[in-house]
């Protein structure tokens, strides 16, 4: 029987890496919490992508997002729909971004999957340096795999990704 709040898996990169994946995720929990501390190995701030799936990653136009963001000088909001992967925050090149993604009721097979993300990039300006996101995967399948990748870049060596499960009574 799992604890209420339990570590499922951790990935710490030992080299620059394009895709970070969690596979065969236990279905024993109610929610997942993914904590990311990462930067990119390239030359500029980039938005980062996520795909999820059951058995395989969904690459169809089944994702969308709405965000609230602050650049350090202006607050903004935006959205995108019918996309083949969804953004969840920005990462930079000097210091890591901290992000926490909540996959709510990820293992149920009756609802589409909504994810909350809270992202903090302190030292580089982008519209999503400090941001909150609502993400949607339009599928009632349980999530048993997660894929993260920065747009056109790689996660830098030393970036960490830790997946936790929260189990409701």
């Amino acid at each position: 029987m799992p604890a209420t709040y339990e570590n499922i898996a951790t990935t710490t990169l030992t080299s620059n890496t394009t895709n970070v994946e969690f596979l065969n995720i236990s279905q024993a929990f109610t929610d997942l919490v993914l904590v990311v501390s990462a930067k990119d190995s390239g030359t500029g701030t980039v938005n980062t992508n996520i795909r999820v799936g059951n058995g395989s990653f969904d690459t169809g136009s089944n994702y969308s997002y709405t965000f609230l963001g602050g650049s350090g000088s202006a607050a903004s909001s935006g959205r995108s729909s019918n996309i083949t992967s969804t953004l969840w925050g920005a990462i930079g090149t000097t210091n890591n971004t901290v992000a926490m993604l909540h996959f709510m009721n990820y293992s149920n097979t009756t609802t589409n999957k909504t994810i909350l993300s809270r992202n903090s990039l302190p030292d580089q300006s982008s519209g999503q340096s400090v941001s909150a996101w609502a993400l949607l995967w339009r599928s009632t399948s349980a999530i048993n795999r997660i894929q993260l990748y920065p747009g056109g870049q790689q996660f830098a060596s030393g970036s960490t990704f830790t997946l936790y499960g929260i189990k409701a009574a």
Partner: protein
Amino acid sequence: MIIPGIIASRFTPQGDFESIATVSVGAGGSSSISFNSIPSTYQHLQLRWIGRTNRAGNASDTVTIALNSDSGANYSYHNLYGDGSAAGAGAGANTTIMYVGWVAGATALSNTFGVGVLDILDYANTNKYKTVRSLTGRENNGSGIVSIESNSWRSTSAVTSLTITSQFGGTYQQHSQFALYGIRG
């Protein structure tokens, strides 16, 4: 003492984040969800939800919460939100309920629910009013909103119950779920 592996595996250490109770809405729907007799043995509470109501003609509904069944004008709220077009902020004083976050309404995409994570710190402390923070959102593939919500209940009573309703009188639909956790201090 050496514990055999089979027995040892049943004693997973729980830590200081514990599940208190969970309510999953059944086929008939529910106009309100309640957590009663909340023990005072934790320091903080966290509520995590997915929800959808039958609010007619709208893809959105708002989660409202009364603490200890207080329906007096003893609450206030503030929010910081992004609706996909603009960032904004709002406020309300002397309200009769807390406005804590988002769920989907009747015209939202099928099977799509709003979500939230809410924290009440020092919920059982009888020396302070109760301050409630939540991160919440709903996304509808072309519309949606994400926000940080702030609420206050002007009572020094320990929180012993949460009564969850819809701002617009909607009925929570099947598969909506509210899970209450306690954090030890």
